């Protein structure tokens, strides 16, 4: 580091990591304190429901007949199929997954503009698993003060067993998390038996190891750093807020100036906040909500529970920290009452987009064809000149039969009237039939011949069609016929 750059950085040397002047902030461990209350109760319920869904969903059964897996939710990688209850998705229909993600994103936008960071505070896997890990930590090492003391204490037998027990419990949860992930990709009962007897593949154990490691590291060690430094969502979710969004807010007009006081009315010149610091101690990301809206606030509402418990004790009105809209909170300070406005242009647009996206997805799902035709024109050679001067192009036809029975398809061509189509192996047939086995893709070679006089352009649009001889369903694919210039 040369002197100039050093001067640019800072003129005030301090111990590394102590000041905000450093580029790198040393990590301060967050020892969040136990708290009870409305939001804590809601957080526990959300945790129970979400973990329940995660662990139990792969065990739901869904009968699809004898040839298909009976697991309701299954992504069958080797079989190249995804099953979601009554929906079966082929790899080329991965746009359904894209649509699902778009709907999820729009739902997130809507929820954020209405209720703030409910995703971050209650539903995000990082929050759910971190919450679970913190509770395990509290059970084994005790609450905030005991944990801080334990960490400062020199190594002793007690410290050793408590730390070992905590990490063992964390790892056990992590293994269960990583193991359950496998069940979404392999038949759950079979996979469990294989994993338990040690006969599963190395890939399976590798992925269990991977997700065990990420769960243990992210929920046990990284915790709030994931939200503050790694996650992109806090960085742009502010774009969905406005003064009507419900957020965790501190009523500064009522609380300030803060100061210690006894129960009862605060002494003249002081606000309701007695600066007890409980709101900071219970915070899972270790921030002070009284500093205002900030990136590191995940909106879990535990500081509301903390403050309300204190306000009740000292006999002051509650909701000094509240789940409230910024506009309402401010208006109350000026003696006005503003109603909560959930229906706004912003929320209407998000809701409209959500409905539109869902409707498009539903329409696509309902109109999903049972057969799909894909045509690839030959590239080498793009065309062949025959002895009589006519031009012949070769094509590879892929016919996906998405039904559970063998199907026959007739094949046709829309284009120049003089064009003749032939299928390799059935050159003599007037009406060739493409037979495709159930739940598979059939590959066929097709040749289209056009007499030299009947074609003028280097490329002529043509359309291949197939018709299911059982259901009369037609599938088409546009391509071109190439000829010499």
């Amino acid at each position, binding site marked *: *580091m*040369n*002197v100039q750059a*050093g*001067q640019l*950085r*800072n*003129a005030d*040397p301090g111990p590394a990591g102590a000041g905000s002047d450093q580029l790198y902030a040393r990590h301060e461990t967050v020892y969040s304190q136990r708290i009870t209350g409305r939001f804590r109760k809601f957080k526990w319920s959300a945790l129970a429901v979400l973990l329940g869904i995660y662990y139990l969903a792969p065990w739901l059964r869904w009968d699809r007949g004898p040839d298909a897996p009976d697991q309701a939710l299954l992504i069958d990688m080797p079989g190249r199929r995804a099953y979601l209850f009554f929906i079966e998705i082929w790899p080329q229909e991965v746009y359904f997954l894209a649509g699902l993600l778009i709907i999820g994103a729009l739902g997130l936008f809507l929820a954020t503009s209405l209720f703030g960071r409910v995703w971050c505070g209650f539903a995000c896997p990082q929050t759910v698993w971190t919450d679970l890990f913190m509770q395990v930590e509290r059970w084994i090492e005790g609450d905030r003060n005991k944990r801080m003391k334990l960490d400062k204490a020199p190594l002793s037998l007690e410290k050793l067993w408590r730390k070992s027990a905590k990490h063992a419990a964390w790892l056990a949860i992590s293994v269960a998390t990583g193991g359950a992930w496998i069940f979404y990709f392999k038949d759950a009962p079979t996979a469990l038996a294989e994993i338990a007897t040690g006969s599963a593949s190395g890939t399976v154990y590798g992925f269990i190891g991977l997700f065990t490691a990420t769960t243990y590291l992210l929920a046990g060690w990284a915790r709030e750093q994931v939200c503050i430094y790694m996650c992109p969502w806090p960085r742009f979710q502010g774009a969905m807020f406005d003064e009507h969004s419900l957020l965790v807010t501190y009523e500064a007009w009522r609380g300030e100036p803060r100061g210690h006081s006894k129960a009862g009315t605060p002494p003249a010149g002081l606000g309701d906040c007695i600066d007890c610091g409980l709101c900071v101690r219970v915070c899972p990301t270790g921030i002070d909500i009284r500093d205002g809206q900030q990136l590191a606030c995940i909106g879990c509402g535990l500081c509301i529970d903390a403050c309300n418990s204190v306000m009740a004790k000292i006999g002051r009105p509650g909701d000094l920290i509240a789940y409230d809209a910024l506009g309402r909170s401010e208006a109350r300070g000026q003696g006005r009452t503003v109603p909560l406005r959930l229906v706004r242009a912003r929320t209407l647009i998000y809701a409209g987009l959500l409905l539109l996206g869902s409707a498009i997805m539903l329409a696509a799902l309902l109109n999903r064809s049972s057969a799909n035709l894909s045509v690839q024109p*030959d*590239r*080498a*050679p793009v065309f*062949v*000149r*025959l*002895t*009589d*001067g006519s031009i*012949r192009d*070769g094509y590879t036809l892929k016919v996906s039969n998405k039904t559970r029975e063998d199907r026959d398809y007739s094949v046709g061509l829309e284009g120049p009237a003089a064009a003749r189509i032939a299928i*390799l*192996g059935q050159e003599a047939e007037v009406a060739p039939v493409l037979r495709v086995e159930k739940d598979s893709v059939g*590959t066929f*070679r097709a*040749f289209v011949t056009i007499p030299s006089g009947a074609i003028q352009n280097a490329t002529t649009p043509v359309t291949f069609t197939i018709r299911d001889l059982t259901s009369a369903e037609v599938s088409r694919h546009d391509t071109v016929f190439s000829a010499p210039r």
Partner: protein
Amino acid sequence: MSSTEKDAVTGRETTGHEWDGIKELNTPLPKWWVYVFIATVVWSFGYWVVYPAWPGIAGYTRGLIGYSSRAEFDDTMSVAADARRVWTDRIAASSVQEIAADPELLAYSVAGGRTLFAENCAPCHGAGGEGAPGYPNLADDSWMWGGDLGAIEQTVRYGVRSGHEQARISEMPRFGTDGLLDRRQISDVGDYVLSLSGPAADAAAVQRGATVYAENCASCHGEAGAGNRELGAPALNDAIWLYGADKAGVVQQITAPRHGVMPTWSGRLDDVSIKLLSVYVHSLGGGE
């Protein structure tokens, strides 16, 4: 060098190096990085013992587990060959005609033949069998030596002018360089054969050329220019020309004929591969 100097601005030690008044802060590697590096060094000693490592005069240290990448390759290949055996056994026992008539074997042959073609044939005949000047197009319907499965298989197996005793051989006389025809006659006969598949350039020349053709060329290429596959004489009455479709190309071929060579593939490729290739070439579109 042991005296440490502190940078006044950051309060950190410098390395003691100075360039034109600019000093470098001492930023050692992170400890974990150093430990990982040392661990990898220690780990490498294990490799020396377990895996082949040190070269010697007459060989190398084999390692405790006797690993060999060549042996691993051979194992992989034999596993692959075993997996294919269910198909290759059937193909070895079938004629090319039987293979082409069986949809399963046809699909297998087209897929396997494509790879073999890309490895062995594409340099001359093109990636899709489209050929090049002097190298026949295998996707069209013009065949010098026959386009049915049996004829294609024989050509693939023994080649053309390859030196194999069963190779296909033909030779066109050098009408120009050996003085069999003069320039005028060659030009006329060139006009004549081009008129068989296209508009005549010069009616008088075509007329004269017809006589020359009947006396010199018809015995191999046929009276109407239809060619003769027994002799490997290409048809002259179609739109396809191996050595150029213009008059200069035709005249050059009459004056001093070029004769392409295709190697014999029996002995280079096994019987199954030759059958796969024959069926694949037949499937390119021109098969008869």
